[in-house]
């Protein structure tokens, strides 16, 4: 868990921090408090961000925190799963609208990025994987067509 406070101005560091937190897929517990499931990697990632906040004249700390009730823990995990589920649904839609190898490459990258921040895989993960496989075979079939 990371707690942080950043000055309102300049807005650059705030924007950068927001973008990095989004990439990590954090749960926003409260204003200036974000959480990730604890492992060596997530801890290191939050520690670097905390240093960035300090460097931008803010205050920040990284904590090992535990919810006191199972319900609270479940709500946090459910929130993270729901956020990823929405991203996977967007991927399914994008796969349906795509048809070229360039789209395929972009969507594979997007899939990897979402997977990396997916700590509690929702059922939508498999749906997105299936949509991507379907797009792969569509692109492969088109490549095999004779050129007219």
């Amino acid at each position: 868990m990371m707690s942080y406070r950043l000055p309102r101005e300049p807005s650059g560091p705030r924007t950068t921090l927001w973008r990095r937190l989004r990439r990590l897929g954090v749960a926003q517990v409260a204003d200036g408090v974000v959480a990730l499931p604890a492992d060596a990697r997530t801890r290191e990632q939050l520690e670097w961000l905390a240093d960035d906040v300090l460097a931008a004249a803010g205050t920040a700390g990284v904590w090992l925190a535990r919810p006191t009730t199972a319900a609270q823990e479940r709500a946090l995990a459910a929130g993270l799963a729901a956020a990823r589920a929405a991203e996977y649904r967007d991927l399914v839609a994008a796969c349906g609208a795509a048809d070229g190898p360039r789209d395929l490459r972009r969507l594979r990258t997007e899939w990897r990025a979402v997977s990396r921040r997916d700590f509690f895989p929702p059922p939508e993960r498999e749906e997105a994987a299936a949509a991507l496989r379907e797009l792969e075979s569509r692109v492969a079939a088109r490549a095999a067509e004779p050129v007219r």
Partner: protein
Amino acid sequence: MRWATRAGVHIDRAACAWLIRGFVDPDAEFLFVGDVAEVPGDATPFDMRGVALGHVGGDCSFETILRRYELTDPVLWRIAEIVHVADLDDDRFDAPEAPGLDVLLRGLSMTGDDARTLAVSGPLFDGLYEYHRRRALLGREPA
């Protein structure tokens, strides 16, 4: 000289150790610690929170070391792009090698200790360096 870094070596620390031994200090000896407070006085810490040779202004530690020791070799900077993307995963550079290298290093850290990760990854980085050196010389993909 002695150098210290956080235990549990992954891509950035492995690449930094290779860089230090090859281009900064051929006699480098590496220590792995749990916290910056455990770094002995005669050791230079890298890739740890709050030390000079860490992540600075969006750079990963490998890039910070290149800047700090004024290493301008373009091949090293190409490797820095790969390490940056593998470590920070932010698409700042086009580095298709990055995801594969990251997985290899993470797998190594699961099957051996940090000394072994450095021993095995060193030749990998040697190969990466040679490949990109030849590519830069030829101006195309080497055979």
